[in-house]
């Protein structure tokens, strides 16, 4: 039993995590005829809290409560994994990535997210504006405009062989590559790194 706990505490390899995530697709379908998708929850939060008479948010969001319960579960799962099953060691990141990030001023690998960026002290600074506010706006606006995120398009959509989802996924990647290789460095220096 102790060995099992020790094993669980290690970071899980991709060939364990990927198939488990993939199994969410049939699980949700069989359990309640639900299509795997997470960004829709953001829409339901809008519909529930600030619909403001906008047609896009005027629907019976209560029927979609399962989706909000599901994401609440993800939050709780994050808490459980971090509180009880955490890996005590620093995260192992590719050498080449560490070199690239050092050039951007990111050198702290003690947590899963770099504390140089993701801390409350940065909230009211340019850093917070860039990573929390602008980043969040892009994620929320983009996923809804695209009609889904990595779960809804890349996993659920491609799994059900729908080519529009493949198109969306290709453009997720193009946006990500462009941000990482072209915009990230200049943006970080503009916003105070």
């Amino acid at each position, binding site marked *: 039993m102790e060995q099992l706990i020790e094993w669980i505490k290690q970071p899980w390899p991709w060939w364990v995590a990927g*198939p488990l995530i993939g199994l969410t697709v049939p699980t949700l379908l069989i359990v309640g005829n639900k299509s795997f998708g997470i960004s829709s929850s953001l829409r339901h939060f809008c519909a529930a*809290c600030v619909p403001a008479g906008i047609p896009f948010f005027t629907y019976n969001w209560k029927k979609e409560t399962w989706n909000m319960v599901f994401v609440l579960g*993800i939050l709780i799962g994050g808490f459980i994994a971090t509180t009880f099953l955490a890996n005590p060691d620093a995260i192992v990141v590719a050498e*080449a990535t560490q070199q690239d990030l050092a050039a951007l001023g990111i050198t702290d690998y003690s947590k899963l997210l770099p504390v140089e960026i993701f801390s409350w002290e940065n909230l009211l600074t340019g850093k917070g504006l860039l990573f929390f506010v602008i980043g969040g706006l892009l994620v929320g*606006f983009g996923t809804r405009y695209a009609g889904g995120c990595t779960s809804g*398009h890349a*996993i659920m959509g491609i799994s059900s062989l729908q080519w529009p989802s493949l198109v969306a996924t290709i453009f997720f990647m193009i*946006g*990500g590559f462009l941000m990482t290789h072209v915009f990230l460095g200049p943006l970080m220096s503009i916003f105070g790194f």
Partner: protein
Amino acid sequence: MKVADKNKNVAPVECEAPNMQGKSEKLLKYLIIGVLFGIVFVKAEIISWFRIQEMFRLQSFFMYGVIGSAIVVGIISIQFIKKYNIKTLSGEKINIPTKEFRKGQIIGGFIFGLGWALTGACPGPLFAQIGSGFTVIIVTFLSAVAGTWIYGKFADKLPN
């Protein structure tokens, strides 16, 4: 938030006794699936900003392995469900909505990609990051809700 309060006040009228129990029971399973899913996200370090950087810098196979194997398992599962005409637990026919092609998948997809590389998170990991104690991500989450709202506000004026 005012509207939410109003809804809360209205809610009990719709949730009268007999249905209520069944309904909450039904939702519990989604909570459990979500919890398991959140644990996988953290334990495989998918919620890490560093993993997303490795992915977009093509310096690690890890995230490609995760997403690729998830898709393979998803494809096999759905083919299996279709071939054997598997029903839901309550006996319904399984329904997979068709995704129509729209320009939004290109423009919106691209915009999301920009945000994905910045925040290091798609919407799912956002929730797991908050649960993991990175409470400042609540701000990212609220911004993402705001971004969704802005899309909804201008949806009919955007090319689609």
